[in-house]
């Protein structure tokens, strides 16, 4: 029987400085995801409501981290759950419900981004091998004096800006790995790519972040 909560590989929820965190701790004595899914497949909308409550925080966060708009993330999260409801009769539990839901959420978000044609400037092209010198100087988001110590809020802003400069392909894998704590095979399943491609995108995303943020950490 699957655990009623997300997989053990998921990170503990970290409190947000903005207080927007929502825990997904399910009642350990409550029904498992599998049990709720079975009820949903029999038409129990109450069971589906329970699943929504369980995972809306994670789905909304994942989408928000990609689109950076509360209103759009809200709408897209709704679409993801509606698609999940429609597809539940065909869900065969080959993966956990959580991973399956995440796959749907990712596809909804990706389709929306593709339509919006959001492109990061100066993004890596995986078809072109680029050699990135991690020690190369980059233009910082804000001009900082060498003697000025970056505050926590400034670091946060720099990290967020660096993530925003990643293409959706790279942003998705780095967030799933670093923020969600997903395993490589889970990322591959959610995004719909091979593990080799996960490794490649992760490598370039990490190198890109390193090139954008190396000055921040060297200054500390």
């Amino acid at each position, binding site marked *: 029987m699957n655990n009623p909560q997300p997989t053990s590989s*998921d*990170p503990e*929820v*970290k409190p*947000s400085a903005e207080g*927007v*965190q*929502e*825990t*997904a701790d399910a009642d350990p004595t409550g029904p498992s995801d599998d049990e709720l899914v079975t009820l949903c497949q*029999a*038409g129990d*909308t109450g069971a*589906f*409501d329970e699943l*929504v*409550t369980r995972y*809306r*925080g*994670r789905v*909304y*966060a994942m989408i*928000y*981290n990609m689109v950076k708009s*509360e209103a759009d*993330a*809200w709408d897209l*999260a*709704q679409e993801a*759950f*509606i698609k999940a*409801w*429609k597809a539940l*009769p065909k869900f065969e539990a080959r993966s956990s419900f959580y991973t399956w839901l995440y796959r749907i959420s990712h596809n909804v978000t990706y389709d929306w981004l593709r339509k919006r044609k959001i492109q990061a400037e100066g993004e890596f092209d995986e078809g072109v091998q680029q050699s990135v010198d*991690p020690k190369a100087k980059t233009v910082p988001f804000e001009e900082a004096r060498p003697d000025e110590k970056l505050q926590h809020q400034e*670091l*946060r802003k720099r*990290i*967020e800006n660096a*993530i925003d400069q990643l293409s959706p392909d790279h942003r998705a894998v*780095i*967030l799933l*790995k*670093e*923020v*969600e*704590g997903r395993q490589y095979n889970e990322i591959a399943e959610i995004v719909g790519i091979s593990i*080799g491609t996960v*490794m*490649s995108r*992760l*490598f370039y995303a*990490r190198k890109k*972040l*390193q090139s954008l*943020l*190396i000055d921040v*950490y060297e200054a500390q």
Partner: protein
Amino acid sequence: MKPSEEQWNRWLDGSLSPEEAKAMEAAAEEDASLTADRAFFRQLSADLKETIPAERTPPFADFFNSHLQKRIRDLQEEAESAAKQRPSWWPNWFRLSWAAPLAAATVVVLTLMQIGVIGGRSGSQIVYAYTPDDSVTARTEFDRETNAMIVRLEGMEPLPDGFDLLLADADDAEPPFLVESPAPSQETFVFVGPQPQYPSDRPY
């Protein structure tokens, strides 16, 4: 030793095999950039988790759920409305639900013809039963006691307990009905006629 992209990722994530980890440590002793990479990403990884929450409460969280429930009800009503609007001239046929995997390969298409009287009552008579699967044959017979047409399927695999057949009349205003499975048998009786109660909130 220059690690591959996968080895580099796995080394940062601490998921190399003991042998590979030992080789990477040896390489790091000779290449300071590898050591610097690991230190950098350990700090960045911690900062990413601190900066970017894995969960966020959607605005108006209660409304998020209630709005979804409303949309689902709307979808169900649309499906029921569409089912009732099929034209009356559409020939009656009974569709077997594919809910059970064993029945997935079995289709029985019954063509009915409206006739004047059957056993004293007007209704339909099955004039042809077709099964695309050659291993399955369908025979029909009328049972006067129950005033029901019985479709006998032969050649199907034994049905497991709990296997349910959902039948729908495309041209009938009444909702489709659920047939309780008989004991596992090589023959399956599908009763077309008086039916048990159908769960009205079934989404499909």
